[in-house]
Structures are given as structure tokens and as C-alpha cells.
């Protein structure tokens, strides 16, 4: 079955330190990979995506993500965390088989950046 895993329920980092939020997936073919962020009482905001090409993709608010095909991973990173980055982060995958555009989601990782 197709699935997305975010192995950490919560990640805690100090402000100014680098952060990594992990994501692995089990989807056949060459899926599209996404990161979304959800702030309290807000919707799901698109951060970045990987379609093809360079394995390191850059997105909004200084975030980037590294695609690793052999490990089927798409980890979210930021070199220097801000307190305002504290939010819920979701990894999502689109199988892209035919007209299939649905997103398959991870459970989410709560990021807490401490001042």
C-alpha cells in the first residue's frame, strides 16, 4: 500500500540552530513530493515540492528539502531556525499515475523552536 511516514511526532530545536524534519515514502514510480505547513487555526500552506531535477529544492521562508531516491526520503531542512517556524509540518506525495492527482499524507511533525 502507498504510504508516507514522518517518524517524529515532535522536533525541538533552539533558535538559530539547523533543523531537519524527516519524511520517507512508499509509492511506486516517480511521484511528486511536497511539504506543507499548518499554523494554528490556519489552513495547509504550500512550502515546496520536488518534481524532477536537482535533488535539493528550495521553498518559502528559507526552507529546503533534499530528495533521496535510493532511500525514498524527502527531508525538510532549514539552516537556521526561527521561533516563528514553530508549526505543524506535513509531507505529502502524489503518485501521478495517469490522472491521479491525489495527495497521500504523513501524520505531521510538530516543530517547536525555542528562543
Amino acid at each position: 500500500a502507498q504510504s508516507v511516514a514522518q517518524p517524529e511526532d515532535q522536533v525541538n530545536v533552539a533558535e538559530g540552530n539547523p533543523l531537519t524534519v524527516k519524511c520517507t515514502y512508499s509509492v511506486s514510480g516517480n511521484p511528486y513530493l511536497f511539504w506543507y505547513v499548518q499554523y494554528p487555526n490556519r489552513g495547509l500552506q504550500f512550502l515546496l515540492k520536488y518534481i524532477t531535477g536537482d535533488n535539493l529544492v528550495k521553498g518559502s521562508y528559507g526552507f529546503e528539502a533534499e530528495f533521496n531516491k535510493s532511500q525514498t526520503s524527502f527531508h525538510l531542512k532549514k539552516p537556521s531556525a526561527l521561533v516563528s517556524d514553530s508549526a505543524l509540518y506535513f509531507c505529502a506525495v502524489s503518485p501521478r499515475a495517469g490522472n491521479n492527482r491525489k495527495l497521500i499524507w504523513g501524520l505531521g511533525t510538530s516543530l517547536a523552536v525555542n528562543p
Partner: protein
Amino acid sequence: EPEVTQTPSHQVTQMGQEVILRCVPISNHLYFYWYRQILGQKVEFLVSFYNNEISEKSEIFDDQFSVERPDGSNFTLKIRSTKLEDSAMYFCASSDPRALTDTQYFGPGTRLTVL
């Protein structure tokens, strides 16, 4: 910047009642989606809609659910006879398949509570 809007933000209903959740997708988008997130669980795909018909639906999207684009701007999700287990956050999304990225952009969600 254009965004997806959803109304109401919170809907409380009695079991067995019909509810209609409303969404206004981004104006030039052609694909529309509904997802839901039961508290503590993953975001789940319900249905996608393109060219005035359902493009794909999940097993969750049974005969109790229907979608409609009644005019040029609204996209609705109807649940005919709500069950307790329909209580969830419902997210609407839209995308433009003509765009290189075809990214799904989400609304803020409607929290449905079935009593």
C-alpha cells in the same frame, strides 16, 4: 495573492442531518479537491473534480457524499446524512493543471462536529 476560501469555519450538526460545506477555489484553477482530517489522524483524500465531473474518489467517498460546482466560483461538498464519524476538519483545495507545478493550494478548512 489569490487564495482558497471556505465557509463556514465551524459547523455543528445533529447526526442524520445534511450538511453542505462551501469552497471558493482560486479563480483560474481547473482541478478541485476535498480532503478531510479526523482529529489525530492523517489528512485523507476524498475526491477530485475536473471539467464538471468527478476525476477520482477514495473509498471514503461513498453514496452519502456528493460534490457540485453550482456556478463559476463555488465548489461544494454535501454529506446527506451525517454520522458521528464524519466529525473532522474538511479541507478544500484547487490546482491549475496547465501550470508547470500543478500545486494544490488549500483553504483554511471547515471543522465539522456531528453530535
